[in-house]
């Protein structure tokens, strides 16, 4: 029957539309389902995952000592030249020459947070920090020197 089919068609179509309207109507009235994160406002409570790869940093202890031996493993592991290790020769108290880092230059603007340098580091000198607000007005300030001024290598790290 043409007429019956026609009416059935119209009714099932209307029903499918009403089902959709009921679902959106549910969300319209249930505001506790809202998932918006009010980002700059929730900065205080925002906690990044502890493995989050934000930028490469070099931790220093309270005596201003780091663990970097200047072996350039990170520089070799980096796919796009983000890290440059500049070494110098320290004279130890016994008068021996010892290789140490002068500067560990890190180009945040080139970094893709691939974690390969951290994995490659044999002495765990560099780690990934959880910071993520990297925007600055001057591109030059994205080039960072990871070791603190006057910092030394930690005792016993080879």
């Amino acid at each position, binding site marked *: 029957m043409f007429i019956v089919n026609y009416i059935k068609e*119209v009714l099932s179509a209307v029903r499918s*539309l009403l089902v*959709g*309207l009921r*679902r*959106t*109507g549910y*969300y*319209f009235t249930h*505001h506790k*389902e*809202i*998932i*918006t994160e*009010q980002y700059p406002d929730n900065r205080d409570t925002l906690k990044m995952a502890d493995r989050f790869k934000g930028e490469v940093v070099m931790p220093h202890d309270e005596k201003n000592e780091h663990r970097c031996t200047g072996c350039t493993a990170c520089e070799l592991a980096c796919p796009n030249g983000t890290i440059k290790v500049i070494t110098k020769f320290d004279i130890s108290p016994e008068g021996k020459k010892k290789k140490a880092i002068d500067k560990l230059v890190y180009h945040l603007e080139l970094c893709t947070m691939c974690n390969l340098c951290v994995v490659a580091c044999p002495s765990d000198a560099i780690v990934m920090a959880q910071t993520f607000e990297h925007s600055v007005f001057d591109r030059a300030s994205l080039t960072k020197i990871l070791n603190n001024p006057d910092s030394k290598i930690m005792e016993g790290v080879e």
Partner: protein
Amino acid sequence: MWSLSSISNAIHTWLNETFNPTWAMIFEMVIVGVCVIGLFAVLGLVLVIMERKVAAWIQIRLGPNRVGPKGMFQSMADTVKLLVKEGMTPNGVDKFLFNLAPLIAMIVAMLLMAPIAFAKDFVMWDLNIGVLYVTAVSSITVIGILMAGWASNNKYSLMGAMRSGAQIVSYELSAGLSILTIIVFTGSLNISDIVLSQANGWWIFKGHFPAIVSFVIFIIAVTAETNRAPFDLAEAESELTAGFHTEYSGMKFALFFLAEYINVFIVCAIGATLFLGGWMPFHIGNWEAFNHIMDYIPSGLWFFGKTFFLIFLIMWFRWTFPRLRIDQLLNLEWKYLLPISMFNLLLATALAILGWHF
């Protein structure tokens, strides 16, 4: 009871006592003009913020919440932004028509405001063919859109305008037929008379089945006529970027934007007037006490409440449904809505002749 009509009457009397009738008339026109423009601005702001909030809540978002309390002044900020933007007229467009088109869209929206009864005895122009006037004038909208699409000298705009033309012309039919259903019951084209005829019950309740069907068809048809999703083919942004107003920016774009919202308001006002009793309070048969309490709610509130309910319905559609394709859009009109509304009109006429409605 306090009412808007007493204020308007007082102003009218005072003006006629102070000035001669010609000047009184001119002053009244100026007052009405200022009121209409003010209403336009307020409605535009309110409807935009309403749409954004409705959309946000349906989409499990918060929506605008930065400007003012709960983001209430967001649309003001938007307006300021649009006002200070450069009103560009691209090279290669038909400059006269390009700049005229948004004005036409706007003027049509303004003209449509005239015969609407906002509250008891509060109507700008109590025209005896009010409904006919609205249906006639609202079809001029398409000229503004076609003009914009053609003058833009852009293929997207032209396609959007052509789609819009086909769409508005065909959906006028079923909108007109569903309005006719109510006209058959009331026997009058005067909007005030139509409202008064619903004193003992709104047509959607009194008109039995045909009134409900024609209400549904009316809502679908006016959604299509105002180019709102799911019928927003004229500006389908995933297909035609922005359709007929692709080339517009700044205040000219804002006029189109505003005209769309005002059109939505007006068609919803017509729907509220025809089917939901306009400013007439909600009355139930013999419940005198209940009816009396309902009468205490100002008639303007009733009108705006009903209108905004219909506007909400149309927004709800927009944020739920996907868009139709152009051939499906015309199929829906010519294969479904038109036959159903014709049959419905026949049924309504039979009911009216037999006097079976309340």
